[in-house]
């Protein structure tokens, strides 16, 4: 429902002077409710453990494998597929061996590909047993199996995760992080990652329990890559989610390590670290500032264009997109790092989602002062922008339209002329037929801005004719029938102002009889201008 505020905001856009460029920047924050399927290319919130990198031996993954007690401290236990009833019996027995057997059987059930019986295990009341096993440092196998089982339960729905947390698993897992057994520690990392991934509430519970120092202390030059991958992913979940954001102090704690991780070469570590940065930068300018201050921007720009590391493009681009939605100064760091040299390639990327993100980033740079707009033009961003307006998919076209409108609101007259000459006007006119009221309104806004530039050049008539030639007049006239009141108004205003014979409007005054009396007013107070 168009409220008064929307109208005011709209009116403020018609004003050519004194407008606040920050208001033009389109922020992601506003998009909360989604109708679409969750993004396919973003990383996972929670993961179930089917493999583990730090397991002492690859063969441990084989269900038939029976580890050797002497070498690995894992007792030899013959595991068969037990029923839930048997598992309950085993886990509740006093015998360590039975407990281990039951626990391992439960873990295996929970690791099966399809329909793991998460709820059944919870309903069987086994969680408190599992949690108590976590603290049995002298029973590493049992500890490990319990950790694994709990990890997989925590990977379920929010309700599943809640059960794990409410059974007191959080402190137990955090102390398990310091286990001398790498695979047990890694399992704890994983479990904590699942809990953090559930949402802001549990994320902050973990932070309160000092999970961050415990995690960071495991990073060293000798940490195996596989372990680091899991750890980076867990860190990324600790950075994730808004409403509220993770506490600033926690962010400050993590950032140096994230920066460090971003200089490694492993693709998965880089990807998750980059996602972490993208979450941290997805906020107000203060949040963005904490990221920018680390000096990571040039590295992000580098990762954006990394040929071999295709997976990096999305999170790096997202991070940079977030940063350029910040203040002019923050945007400038990205420009200085060369983002404008990288964007053209991404705007022609084969994947539509990348084109869209690149156009979004560009739209925010275009909302900057005319100096930045000039850099954008000098770096040759107009041709790829027009290309996207013409050939992009709808979501990309929408971002590209925003870029045009933002640009026309802050640009100098010369810059607007360059934009029009690049073919952008023709392209946005073609888009006036899209089935999206907001996009249409944004285009009409751009047309209005272009007219204001033409007015300064004294070329209004030339522009009117050009728009008519490009078929724009027909389209704008048609929009006067649009059901959306604001679209109708905007179209009507443009027609009235630029496409009809000039009509001057007058004003009403009050009257007497035959003629007006010229009355000398009483001067009561002194004039003071």
């Amino acid at each position, binding site marked *: 429902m168009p409220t008064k505020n929307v109208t005011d905001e709209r009116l403020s856009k018609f004003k050519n002077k004194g407008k606040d460029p920050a208001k033009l920047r389109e922020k992601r924050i506003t998009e909360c409710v989604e109708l679409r399927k969750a993004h396919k290319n973003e990383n996972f919130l929670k993961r179930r453990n089917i493999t583990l990198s730090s397991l002492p031996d690859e063969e441990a993954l084989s269900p038939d494998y029976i580890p050797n007690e002497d070498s690995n401290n894992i007792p030899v236990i013959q595991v068969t597929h037990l029923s839930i009833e048997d598992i309950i019996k085993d886990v509740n027995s006093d015998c360590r061996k039975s407990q281990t057997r039951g626990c391992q059987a439960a873990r295996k059930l929970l690791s099966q590909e399809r329909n793991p019986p998460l709820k059944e295990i919870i309903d069987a009341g086994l969680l408190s047993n599992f949690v108590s096993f976590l603290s049995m440092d002298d029973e590493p196998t049992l500890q490990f199996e319990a950790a694994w089982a709990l990890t997989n339960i925590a990977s379920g729905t929010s309700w599943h995760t809640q059960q794990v947390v409410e059974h007191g698993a959080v402190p137990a897992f955090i102390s398990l992080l310091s286990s001398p057994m790498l695979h047990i520690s890694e399992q704890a990392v994983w479990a904590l990652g699942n809990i953090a991934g559930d949402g802001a509430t549990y994320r902050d519970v973990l932070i309160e329990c000092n999970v961050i120092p415990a995690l960071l202390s495991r990073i060293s030059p000798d940490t195996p890559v596989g372990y680091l991958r899991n750890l980076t992913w867990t860190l990324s979940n600790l950075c994730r989610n808004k409403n509220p954001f993770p506490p600033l102090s926690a962010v400050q704690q993590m950032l140096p390590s994230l920066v460090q991780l971003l200089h490694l070469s492993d693709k998965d570590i880089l990807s998750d670290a980059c996602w972490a940065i993208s979450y941290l930068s997805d906020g107000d300018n203060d949040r963005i500032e904490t990221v920018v201050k680390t000096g990571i921007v040039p590295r992000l720009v580098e990762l954006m264009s990394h040929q071999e590391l295709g997976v990096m493009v999305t999170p790096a681009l997202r991070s940079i997109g977030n940063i350029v939605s910040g203040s002019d100064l923050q945007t400038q760091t990205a420009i200085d790092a060369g983002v404008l040299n990288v964007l053209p390639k991404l705007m022609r990327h084969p994947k539509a989602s990348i084109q869209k993100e690149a156009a979004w980033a560009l739209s925010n740079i275009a909302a900057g002062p005319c100096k930045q707009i000039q850099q954008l033009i000098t770096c040759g961003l107009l041709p790829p922008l027009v290309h996207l307006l013409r050939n992009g998919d709808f979501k990309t076209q929408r971002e590209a339209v925003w870029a045009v409108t933002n640009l026309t609101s802050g640009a100098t007259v010369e810059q607007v002329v360059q934009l029009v000459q690049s073919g952008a006007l023709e392209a946005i006119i073609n888009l006036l037929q899209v089935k999206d*009221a907001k996009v249409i*309104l944004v285009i009409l806004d751009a047309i209005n801005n272009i007219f204001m530039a033409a007015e300064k050049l004294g070329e209004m008539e030339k522009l009117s004719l050009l728009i008519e030639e490009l078929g724009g007049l027909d389209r704008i006239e*048609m929009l006067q029938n649009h059901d959306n009141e604001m679209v109708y108004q905007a179209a009507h205003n443009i027609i009235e102002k630029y496409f009809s014979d*000039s009509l001057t*409007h007058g*004003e009403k005054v009050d*009257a007497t009889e035959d003629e007006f009396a*010229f009355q000398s007013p009483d001067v009561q107070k002194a*004039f003071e*201008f």
Partner: protein
Amino acid sequence: MELNDANLQTLTEFLRKTLDPDPTVRRPAEKFLESVEGNQNYPLLLLTLLEKSQDNVIRVCAAVTFKNYIKRNWRIVEDEPNKISDPDRTAIKANIVNLMLSSPEQIQKQLSDAISIIGREDFPQKWPDLLTEMVTRFRSGDFHIINGVLRTAHSLFKRYRHEFKSNELWSEIKLVLDTFALPLTELFKATIELCQTHATDVNALKVLFSSLTLIAKLFYSLNFQDLPEFFEDHMETWMTNFHGLLTLDNKLLQTDDEEEAGLLELLKSQICDNAALYAQKYDEEFQPYLPRFVTAIWNLLVSTGQEVKYDLLVSNAIQFLASVCERPHYKHLFEDQNTLTSICEKVIVPNMEFRSADEEAFEDNSEEYIRRDLEGSDIDTRRRAACDLVRGLCKFFEGPVTAIFSGYVNSMLAEYAKTPRENWKHKDAAIYLVTSLASKAQTQKHGITQANELVNLTEFFVNHILPDLKSPNVNEFPVLKADAIKYVMIFRSQLPKEQLLQAVPLLITHLQAESTVEHTYAAHALERLFTMRGPNNTTLITAAEMAPFTEQLLNNLFKALAFPGSAENEYIMKAIMRSFSLLQESIVPYIPTLIGQLTHKLLQVSKNPSKPHFNHYLFESLCLSVRITCKANPATVSSFEEALFPVFTEILQNDVQEFLPYVFQVMSLLLEIHSNSIPASYMALFPHLLQPVLWERTGNIPPLVRLLQAYLEKGGETIARSAADKIPGLLGVFQKLIASKANDHQGFYLLNSIIEHMPPESLIQYRKQIFILLFQRLQGSKTTKFIKSFLVFVNLYCVKYGAIALQEIFDSIQPKMFGMVLEKIVIPEVQKVSGPVEKKICAVGITKILTECPAMMDTEYTKLWTPLLQALIGFFELPEDDSIPDDEHFIDIEDTPGYQTAFSQLAFAGKKEHDPIGDAVGNPKILLAQSLHKLSTACPGRVPSMLSTSLNAEALQFLQGYLQAATVQLV
């Protein structure tokens, strides 16, 4: 109001009375109902009646009354009382869905509307169970009920198609999807199955197909904002079935009606829209289905007839193809030569044919025909859609498409040539095809501005257009004649001049055609040709070239106005205006006749002005006659006055509001031609022009101000001498105008003329009051526009009366006033003054203040001397400050109370810009240098010392430049 039988009885009686044709019975009943509608239970009484009344008429009447009651009262407006009691609201919401579904269709529609009005306010928060209640009815199996639910859902959801994305809106859509999407999908599948089982039962099919159409509409609304997860997951179901329905034909559902679209057409149109929506917005997900839809839609087009009832379907279907074929990644679907040929042959050409409906419009509804054909309001027509498809295909396949169509054009022309009488429509289609193929960009002003280079327009003109224009019988094949004229008109920028010249006399001949479309097109074409510009920016066609045809042109134009239906034809009147403008003094010999015809026309239309454009061009033509004739011989102005004043008097006396602004403009034009005296006839009118009633109409203000300015310019002395008692009234107008933010500049125009042209002694007693009024407005509500005008006026006053007079009058109003105005207004704001004349006035005025005002040298004003000089130098050298404070942008809108008659300025009544300073000052910079030099010799040493203490270096440098240019020095 109790819910009892007595009240039901009373209400029934009053409802019956509201249907009475006699207003004396009807009105009081309506009044009564309005007076009781605030009572509790009133809506429930209506619901009871519409459900239970024995009389069907009363039931329907109660339903309509109920819907209107809901429409007026349901919304709760902040700070206003709640107009429907909460128990009533709850009761209505609890019963209305049931009631709607169990009512007969007439009542169902009213209640469905009422539900959507309530839903717009209450759904979903305050009416959470509405949807679930509706959805359960899907299972009723009764399609009367199901259609009621679907129709209501459609009116609830259709706003998703045009509203802006917001969290609130999307949360609602999410909620709707959660409860509605799956049942809708199930219903869709079930309905399609039922269509198969009832394939031979026409009545069942009708109901089922109207359900399917509603379902397809709901699909569109629910998928509009974004692609919902549910529909992405169920795309296969929906698209497969949509595709199936597109290809379905059932003889039983075909209608005999030629005009009204049948159920099949409506459903298929909606499916085309749905496919177009997905193709445009959800391209990635829809890609696997798209080729199938292209084929289906194209087959649909091939098999659909010419009847009007298919128009919407055909135009939607063609638009779908047009939007798809422009996309680079679907190019391959069209590039095969056979595909292209088939699209051209079976889709485009048939839809470009002239149909009997077009023929009817051409003959009987020429205005509508012209609007569609000439002014582009043909957006939804088949021809337009076909045209768009041609353009879309040309993006990638211009060569092949042009080649294919050339073949068709030739064969259609050959058909025509064989038997013109039977086959003239083939030629019409051929011309249309050539036009749509050739035109790549078009404007009203220039016609087609970019043409397809593969089409030889000149050759086509010579071989196929010119012969039609030359045919001796202008009334034969009027459609083809109109086509030929239109061809000349739209390709005027592409055709060589000699061919245009060849066409001109032929067009003049066609002004005599009986067909309204034909002679209108001829007038329009001539008008357009006469506006064309040649290489040196003169008109392309010259008056000399027109000389042989002048008489016939003027004759035929006025004769054309005599055709029935063309008495107020704006195209013809515009052509008259344009011809006058082009022919200039060649029309002088004909003026006596022409002016007679024009005034006669004016007298006629002033009885009942109905065609604003016609009237406007009529007045423009009058102005042109006056200008052209009086330019050669100013003395003839009196003969125009003789001819026009009687009509004008009648217009003024009858207060023909639309015409007054025009009359004032023409009078201004006439008066300005007089040399420095004002005829008595004008003076007699003067008091009437000051009447407040005239100034109340906004459209009168600009022309009246101009007319008064003309009075002052020609008769300032006369007014002072013989109408001094009118001076207060004149100043009263100024006072009125100055009070308004929108009109204050008009007030200043008037004031400037008064100061410039009235003898000073006639104003002495008013001067102080004038300034007080200006200061009050300055203090109360100053705007940039006001300040600019104020500055010009103050400086004009200074130029006219001298700097000392200015300073004295300011300081007589309030001590130190002069200094305050300089410091707070002149110095900081002068940079905003725009316009060469205005700037000159300010420069000269400020120079006088600096150099001819002793107070500036010897009082506390001295400290302002250098800042004022610096401001003046800045005024000369710096760019104009065109900034406007934010809160001033909408003054014109805010201050205009509603729509009022607009003022239409007559271009040919235009007035030359007036420069009150004129040649007395050539270069204001030199004047400044000379004046400073004079001042410095009067008080040696003072000026250089003031300059050296506080003028900034840059300004000083500029000043030295002026001194050098004037070859003077300061001492």
